[in-house]
């Protein structure tokens, strides 16, 4: 079966034409890493802005693993994001671990991976193409409703408060998000070059052919799904520590699945560079609009999604690269 989104992949050879872009990315990453040394991050909007942009980039790059590389268009990131947030919140409430604990990040990643495998086998085994997308959307909504109806354990629709007297400065959040982003990008880059990544690309381009040369397509699809579920859980954990309050309608919001898809589509599905560029552009637009016109921002993101699908189905990066 042909998955039309993905024809537009920008191949590795074409990356070489854009060494300049990669260099630019490295320089800006370095600048972002040393900025906190020179300016104070406390009570600066810029710091929060970059914090969210880092989270968006991490989410988009991880979404790109399952949907760009392996070709399974997922809208289930919100489920894993919320899962990570609730692991952090419930863990803190029941005194399994403290505030901003490394073990919480680790545990949320593991739980999310296990859930992704459990959900992934039935969904990916039976559903093709669009029905998988519908299934993942259903899963994330089911998670939200299960948590709302969870009673004492999940705190119901009221959510869970992360009560602590311990305060980490904003530097901590900034660098945590930055490190998560860098690690996710490295993971995606390594995966892309490795044999596993090649298998993902093979099964995306032609599933029957991939199966005939001995790739177990189902296992590799589930592997891609579970790898891409790690980052949203860790981001959710971090976001819960930032908000100090976890509510089902916030952390299981469809936006957490929608934005990564939108950003990757804008940048160009399947390419790492495209995911990063798309997240920076869409993330900035969404945040600036929600800052100045708070009521309008879902309207703008919805319209943006339609416009991208109609006008730029191949993403911005393809426009940049295909120039004569």
């Amino acid at each position, binding site marked *: 079966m042909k998955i039309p989104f993905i024809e537009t992949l920008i191949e590795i050879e074409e990356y070489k034409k854009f060494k300049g872009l990669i260099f630019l990315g490295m320089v800006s990453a370095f600048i972002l890493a040393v900025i906190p040394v020179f300016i104070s991050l406390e009570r600066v909007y810029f710091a929060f802005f970059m914090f969210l942009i880092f989270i968006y980039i991490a989410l988009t790059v991880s979404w790109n693993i399952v949907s760009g590389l392996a070709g399974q268009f997922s809208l289930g990131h919100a489920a894993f994001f919320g899962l990570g947030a609730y692991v952090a919140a419930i863990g803190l409430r029941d005194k399994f671990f403290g505030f901003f604990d490394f073990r919480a990040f680790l545990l949320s990643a593991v739980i999310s991976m296990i859930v992704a495998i459990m959900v992934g086998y039935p969904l990916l*085994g039976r559903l093709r193409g669009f029905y998988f997308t519908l299934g993942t959307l259903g899963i994330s*909504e089911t998670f939200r*409703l299960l948590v709302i109806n969870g009673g004492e354990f999940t705190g119901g629709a009221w959510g869970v408060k992360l009560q602590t007297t311990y305060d980490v400065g904003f530097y901590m959040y900034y660098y945590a998000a930055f490190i998560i982003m860098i690690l996710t990008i490295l993971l995606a880059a390594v995966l892309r070059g490795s044999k596993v990544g090649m298998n993902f690309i093979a099964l995306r381009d032609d599933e029957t052919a991939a199966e005939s040369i001995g790739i177990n397509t189902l296992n590799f699809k589930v592997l891609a799904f579970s790898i891409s579920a790690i980052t949203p859980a860790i981001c959710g954990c971090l976001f819960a520590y930032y908000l100090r309050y976890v509510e089902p309608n916030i952390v299981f919001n469809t936006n957490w699945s929608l934005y990564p898809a939108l950003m990757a589509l804008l940048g160009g599905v399947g390419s790492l560079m495209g995911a990063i560029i798309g997240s920076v552009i869409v993330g900035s637009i969404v945040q600036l609009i929600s800052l100045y016109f708070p009521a309008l921002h879902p309207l703008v993101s919805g319209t943006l999604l339609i416009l991208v*699908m109609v006008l730029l*189905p191949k993403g911005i990066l393809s426009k940049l690269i295909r120039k004569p």
Partner: protein
Amino acid sequence: MDITQIAQICLYGVLRGFVYSIMALGLTLIFGTMKIVNLAHGILCILGAYLAFSLIDLGLDPYFSMLLLLPLFFIIGVCLYFGIFQKTRDPNSSTVSSFGLLIAIQTLIMIIWNPTPKMAHSYFSDILVPIGVVSLSSSRIVLSALCIFTAFIVHLLLKKTWIGIAIRSTSEDAETSSIMGINVKKVNCIAFSIGLMLACLAGVAYGTNYAFDPFVGLSLSFKGFIVLTLAGIGSTLGLLVTGPFLGVIEGIVGFQLGLGWTDVISYLMIIILLITKPTGIFGGKKI
């Protein structure tokens, strides 16, 4: 749970289910011809309900304002088709744009009206009709009669008229039917617009009997899709059975476990259905 309660739950579930049937009918037309799962279908229903709600202020009963709203929705359908769905490259990107449409309309509704739940009060809502041990609001009887009537009309439209045959042949094989001289774009446009008219009808019927707010959009689309999957593609009258079936299940689950669980059950049902029986009960075609 005594016998009166069971009768009441079942009857109310059946009547509620007819609304789902009409929604699923619109979805079938759109899905059959263009292979788009229109995720914005539910919110378009709700938009119809809100418009009917506003027209009450002008002194129009919701069931009469439907006469104004149906042509309006036909025009909206034509605009949406030529503006968005004709221009997207493939069914997947159309579906993603319909998700964008869902969010955009939802926000528009929240800006124009506010997000508090509303109900469009009809003249019929106040008249109670006793049937055996249960008593019913006559508005629900009007609703179900309207839904069944519409389903039969659409069934006849699909089976007997020229445009119905064109729609069916397009959903069978678009390429071959374009060779046979069918203007596929026109047929798609008409099917989409009729689908939206059915959405409007379902929305007004929903709005006069149940409270609605902008957030039920996605779950309504899902319910329509469950009913559609249960019946199978291409089975118009089968929808009239599976819709009430879902309604009764919802009623029982809501009564026994609490209303919060009804949506969980419907989401789980669609996932299990897609995995186990994608052909549906009445239709033979795999979706």
